């Protein structure tokens, strides 16, 4: 298993680590955390089982449902298909780090107001995707929302309300936060 430590970006610094436990440092929600893990541990299991950040959900563990969506360096990735050890020196953002302590991100508020979930299990992944979708600069209309949000399954089928929540945040942003109607 190869991992890039220290001076990132040059092949010379490649070292073999594992297959036993190795110490890695992950920066999650702005906080560096050092943990012993085997290199085969996914980012998802590292977050949930080692760092006790269980807001990121395990739905399929196969990259099919999107419940484990987090950001790595501000890009959405599926944590179940990402090895934790490859995320050293990168900034990981999970649902727990989306807003300040005790605060809610406008997307989280919109999800509550629009009832964009029922069981809530896919919700953190939906929200991480939804915030990223607006930040990625797509045309934020319904066809584009549908397309770019289709990697996150919701078995309760709250999809129309998920779209309404995204429109609410979009419109509040466009209107400078004055009008949050969807």
């Amino acid at each position: 298993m190869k991992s890039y430590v220290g001076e990132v970006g040059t092949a010379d610094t490649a070292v073999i680590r594992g297959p036993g436990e190795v110490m890695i440092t992950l920066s999650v929600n702005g906080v560096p955390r050092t943990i012993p893990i085997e290199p085969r541990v996914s980012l998802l299991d590292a977050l949930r089982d080692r760092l006790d950040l269980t807001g990121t959900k395990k739905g399929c563990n196969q990259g099919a449902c999107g419940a484990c969506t987090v950001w790595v360096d501000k890009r959405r990735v599926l944590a179940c298909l990402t090895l934790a050890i490859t995320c050293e020196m990168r900034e990981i953002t999970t649902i727990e780090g989306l807003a300040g302590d005790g605060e809610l991100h406008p997307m989280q508020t919109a999800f509550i107001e629009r009832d964009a979930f029922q069981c809530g299990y896919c919700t953190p992944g939906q929200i991480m995707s939804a915030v990223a979708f607006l930040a990625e600069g797509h045309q934020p209309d319904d066809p584009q929302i549908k397309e770019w949000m289709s990697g996150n399954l919701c078995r309760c089928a709250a999809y129309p309300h998920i779209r309404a929540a995204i429109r609410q945040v979009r419109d509040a942003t466009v209107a400078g936060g004055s009008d949050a109607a969807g």
Partner: protein
Amino acid sequence: MSPAIGLALDRVEGRAKVSGTARYTAELVLPGLVHAVLVGARIPSGRVIAIDTGKAERAEGLIAVLSHFNLPPIPGKPRLLPSLVGLAAPGESFFPMQDEVVHYAGQPIAIVVADTIERAEHAASLLRIDFAELPAHTVLDQVRDQAYEPQRIFGGMLPGRNSRGDVEAGLAQAKHRIDQTYRISPNHHNPIEPSATTVVWDDVDRLTIYDSTQGPTATQMTVSNLLGLAPGQIKVISEYVGGSFGSKAMIWPHVTLAALAARQVQRPVRLALDREQMFHSCGHREEQEQRITIGARADGRLTALRHHKLSLTSPFDDWAEPSLQSPGIFYDCANYEGVYRLARGNTITPTFMRAPGEASGMFALECAMDELAELVDIDPVELRLRNFAKTDPSTGNPWSSSGLRECYQRAAELFGWDGRDRAPGTRRDGQWLIGTGMAGAAYPHAVPPNQQRARARLYADGSAVVEAGVSEFGTGVTTAMRQVAADGLGLPVDRVRFVGGSSDLPNITAAVGSAGTGAVSAAVHLAATELRNQLIVRAVADQQSPLHGADPATVTVEDGRMRLHDRAEVGETYAAMLARGMTPDVEALGVWTPPPLTTPYGMHTFGAQFAEVAVDADLGLVRVRRMVGVFAPGRVLNRKTAHSQLMGGMLWGMSQALLEATLMDPRTGRWANPSLGDYLIPVNADAPDVVVETIEVTDTVVNPLGVKGVGEIGIVGAAAAIANAVHHATGRRIRKLPISLEDLL
């Protein structure tokens, strides 16, 4: 103070869910927790000859490999009984790992326990299990000739045959006749949270089970029964459940296996099923076909209805989802016969899946009625109104409430149905063929057969806590019960907290069959009103109370203040009275006795579904453009959460119509597509906006608040409306689910 019931309040647990702090069963942190992985049979029939554990035992972190070779047999014998009953509710009359026999693929053969999930999974992959394989039957076509008519189905709860009048005589009077067979693929629930159980033995004879379940008590009773422990030795906690749709309505073997594993390794054990195991471990909607024979007079009035179902069940149980119940009472037809036939195969016992029975049975009936409307050449809504059942045709009893006629009218109006051109295959929008269709919906109102309880406690500061042992799996029960309790106590909603999620709380049935909200709201309402009455009685007896000496019947409570009904200035708050008496809290139990089965009313929930589809003329691709559903679920406790559930149900109907099929490979006897990549469910792009309305009908029979539930009725009829719209678009009748591209090419 206006009533809280009916308001569209946000979910109380919304903040926890959107911020990731809501902890589901596999997310609880326990000291010394270890991980168990189930290993299932890879053959559908045969015997386990040997399990070579050598490599696994040398793997890092391994704690134990458990199988029938080293686990003591369990003392209990599972007997399938729907969890609505409130007793032990195993999903099948079979418990694995008792001997070497394999009855179905995926049947648990071994449990591997290790210190981390990766190590447990790796060690499990190192097990070498030798099987002696026997021939297996896993699809209906292999066992069709061995079908039999069961005495009773559904865990013994329903007869295998129902009839009234004389179907042959009715058919002899008919001018028009429909005789068609509808085929329905197996379906899997696939909640996004896979089932998980975490078990801690607190002592040698006492355990706590954290379980993703629709009923904490169902888990408690089942494990108690199987392990030969008293219910009081087992505490079950189930706070947040990540969807279920029936997959967590029964208590499947993995729950008790987790308890056995924890006892064996003497550590807390977490056993979470993986996605593939979700296809083998908690039942499914069974493969089935339904034949419908309808006779009708020239004007479309039904003279006979025959509905036969043939489906695949397990070696252990006479299970069929009850597809014939609602279709049997939906139309005014004197001559009716419904018969279930079963054939046994190498499969886990099938189980409840959203609208178990009605989703398939009403599909068949409502497609057949569309065919009849075409034959009679009248509007499909008009055909339904001509055959409208003013009373329950199976008994002649009045409906406890209906609203069906209003649902048709309102849905037709919202959809813009009037003036619809009935000719099929004549509308085009570019390459798309456009069609519209409709169907009726019905779902029986199930009631538990025994008393249901909740507890209400008011504190001296005027705040209240109300408790019942339900779990929150997305129904919104936590929010709605707060509203019920607030109205019952005369408190603002924000002064009331509802607590569920534990078997230690007052006993309430598993939230199944759309009966959960009815049962728990009844018990909560009775607990709250009982407590309010106690407090009023206390006030009028208290010499220091301004209400002293008043007739309790003249006292009302508003905003936490008791006062005379006609003299608002005479009164005092709960808090003032309790503070004066140095009383920290007052508590009451609400006990609801459900109406008996002999209640002389037909109890059903009704609705109407309309859909517009576009079918690609060249590719056969079906897109649902619009859906309108109007339902009459009695009283709606929370408009927001209820409408969300109905919307989800309608989209489930779309999914049933166009996407969902678990494919059995009869050569291997295994599901061929056990993943969320291959078992299709709607993504955001598949799901159109949906128009949902409810018509509130007063029902004084079903329960104190007249709540009939919204969990299932939303899916019923939706697939038929879409299939009928596909016919209207293309002129082709597709009599199978799901309707796929190749059916329309």
